């Protein structure tokens, strides 16, 4: 009971942090807008330039940050359990390399058709994930085979990315932004593209939480307890793939969120996925919104892609976690 209330309190604290991050992200920016005007803008009673800034730039960008944070963190949390590997994240199932190659192909070869980046990157991510699955299939799915197939496919696609960047070295700047991952100029169309996946992913992840708990006991025990292990693993991987693909195709190859946020959440709420999944989702939303806001305003007027900030803080934090846990 004690444990239960402790975990609930931590999740509520995460939610408060996410809410604070949301407000921070809307208030902070290169143009100073008083709080009263922000409120009027959201009400729709303001009507000036500031309303446009709030409603067309900051609010949608913040919402995209929230969705990206939720999607990547949930995806990572699910994959870490399904692959029985604490280092698993959306990269491992080829999402990043698939989205990366597809997105960069569009950015470099068809620079005038940049609206194609998101849908094509999504298709690329899913194609890479399916490809890894097929390669890893041999009388069922074993996590080790997925991880190995993932490494091989990612290396293969990475070669394609490098080749494109060499052939089109004059246009590499836009590709670099995509490789690092950033939220610059993300707006309502991106929100519209992502939220159905977030909703679906959150629902399926919460329904699957108890099955994930059982899966963590090992395949034989899980089967003995009546879990359809193969089917569960395939469905959960598919959910994780959809979540990550929808996020990555919008913001580029934003790393570390899917790896670090679930770990940080696990340190605080433990391994029970009924708590870990909501905690990861909420913490992910908080981390991405706050990081993006800092990346946006810290070096104003230059805007840093949030991916750089995530890596700068994420990598040392990850090492800290590793030293603590292993």
């Amino acid at each position, binding site marked *: 009971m004690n*444990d239960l209330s402790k975990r609930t309190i931590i999740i509520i604290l995460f939610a408060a942090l996410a809410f604070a991050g949301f407000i921070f992200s809307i208030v902070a920016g290169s143009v100073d807008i008083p709080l009263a005007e922000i409120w009027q803008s959201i009400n729709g009673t303001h009507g000036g330039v500031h309303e446009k800034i709030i409603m067309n730039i900051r609010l949608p960008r913040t919402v995209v940050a929230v969705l990206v944070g939720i999607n990547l963190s949930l995806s990572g949390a699910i994959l870490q359990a399904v692959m029985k590997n604490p280092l698993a994240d959306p990269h491992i199932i080829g999402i990043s390399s698939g989205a990366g190659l597809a997105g960069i192909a569009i950015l470099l070869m068809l620079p005038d058709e940049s609206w194609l980046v998101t849908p094509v990157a999504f298709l690329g991510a899913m194609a890479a994930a399916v490809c890894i699955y097929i390669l890893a299939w041999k*009388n069922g799915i074993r996590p080790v085979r997925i991880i190995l197939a993932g490494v091989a496919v990612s290396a293969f696609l990475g070669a394609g990315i490098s080749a494109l960047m060499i052939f089109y070295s004059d246009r590499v700047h836009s590709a670099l932004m995509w490789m690092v991952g950033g939220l610059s100029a993300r707006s309502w169309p991106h929100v519209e593209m992502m939220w159905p996946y977030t909703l679906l992913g959150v629902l399926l992840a919460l*329904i699957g939480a*108890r099955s994930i*708990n*059982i899966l*963590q*006991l*090992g395949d*034989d*025990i899980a*089967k*003995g*307890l*009546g*879990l*359809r292990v193969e089917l569960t693993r395939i469905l959960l991987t598919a959910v994780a793939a959809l979540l990550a693909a929808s996020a990555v195709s919008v913001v580029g190859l934003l790393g570390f969120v899917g790896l670090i946020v679930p770990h940080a959440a696990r340190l605080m709420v*433990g*391994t*029970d996925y009924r708590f870990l999944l909501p905690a990861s989702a909420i913490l992910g939303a908080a981390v991405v919104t706050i990081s993006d806001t800092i990346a946006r305003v810290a070096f104003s007027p230059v805007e840093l892609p949030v991916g750089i900030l995530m890596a700068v803080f994420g990598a040392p934090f990850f090492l800290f976690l590793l030293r603590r846990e292993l």
Partner: protein
Amino acid sequence: MSLEVKGLYVTIGDKIILENADVTFSDGKITSVIGPNGAGKSTLLRAASGINEKIKGQVLLDGRDIHSYSRPSLAKKIAVLPQSSVTPSDITVEQLVDYGRFPYRSWLKKSDSKEDREAVEWAMEATRINLLRKRQVSSLSGGERQRAWIAMALAQKPEILFLDEPTTYLDIAHQLEVLEIIRSINKEWGMTIIMVMHDLNQAARYSHELVVVKDKSIYQQGSPDKVLTKKFLADVFRVRAEVFTGPDGGIIFNPVSVY
């Protein structure tokens, strides 16, 4: 609940592990599977319990192919404790035992029913683990941890309980403790117990029947006093041994040398 293995044939990769194995497990009895290392004991257990789906031949549960049952409905009839298990680092005994109710829940019906709570209590009492319910499983001693796992299996309220070497890695006191618990579960609730055992004296002492696996097939099946003979020990284990009848009428064997 009857359990029958017919013409069982199991391969792992290209290697044949069991061929043409026939066993009928006695209902309501304790049966121990014994045999040398690598003979296929665990393989037989995994096939007979339905964990291994990729088998040839038949496993019949109440006369019906075991794989025609859905996983959840099978988990209400059969509980299995494999040799290796992963214990999550931060789970309490009570939570672990509660996982045994997984097959009785669905995502529509998540809340604990009275039946669930009673089953968990009963399982913890039967394994004498109830005083440790709030402890983390990772902080328990080997014997206590094994009892917690057995409690989880019992919470499934199975009719048949499979255990793969339940006393491995335990000291002698904890071995006996676990075996006494297994015996009392069988006696009081008539649960069929099928387990893989290494220690022949313990297998003889705690089982009604022994199934001997040797060289990919069933060498012999019968009561301990019929199975444990000098000839058996020489044939199956290549061990020269003396066999006594103990003061309580049980079989005791004393290994002397390897042939």
